[in-house]
């Protein structure tokens, strides 16, 4: 989900994705190269992201990825689901508990 969100703005390489995910999650999600590689492979197999070529940046070989149309649809649906869940839970939290109601 964070990976899809980080690619929503455009093409990114693995390191860029890892940094963006860390920023998006307020430092809670810190992907290692192994985790990110596996996740990108799974997302590619599912047709949600696709490789966008390799470039040499600062002497290091970077593979870029981009979101596919299916990936964008999936991300939008997931955000909508989270928004609905947050609204439902928020409404419940806003209710003042009635004393004595078990």
């Amino acid at each position: 989900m964070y990976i899809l969100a980080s690619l929503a703005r455009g093409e990114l390489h693995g390191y860029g994705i890892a940094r963006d995910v860390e920023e998006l999650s307020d430092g809670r999600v810190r992907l290692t190269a192994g985790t990110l590689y596996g996740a990108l492979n799974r997302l590619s197999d599912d047709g949600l992201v696709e490789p966008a070529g390799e470039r040499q940046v600062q002497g290091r070989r970077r593979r870029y990825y981009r979101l596919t149309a299916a990936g964008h649809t999936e991300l939008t649906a997931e955000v909508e689901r989270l928004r609905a869940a947050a609204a439902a839970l928020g409404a419940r939290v806003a209710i003042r508990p009635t004393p004595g109601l078990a």
Partner: protein
Amino acid sequence: MRGRLLELCLLAYPRAVRHSDREQLRDLALDLAESHGATREAFGLLRGGLAERARRWRTRRAAVAVGAATAVALTFLTWSAAAQSGSVEEDRFTCVGACADTEAEVDARVRDGWACTESRGPDTVSWRCVRD
């Protein structure tokens, strides 16, 4: 030192992955090791490599299962077709007294390629018609 450690951990990945993505994985791990630490990246590579091996093993096992199921289905279909081709259709007719309708039916079968044998009793006439 850091690079050597990460290179060693890359051995956890299947040979095909190392062949195609070794450089990319190593560079990414080196970049992330600068902020996360090499130990964390090393464990990440080990875990990721073993997970990739497991994923490929599951995929290969699923392919073998599908192949085996297809082979069983094909064997059954072949056997079924062979058994079908050797089967014989059989119809029996019997009449008592006036047999014109039954005889006409038997004649029609014979014209269709059936082999019919007739047997006469004291009051009845029977035919056994078969076709391969």
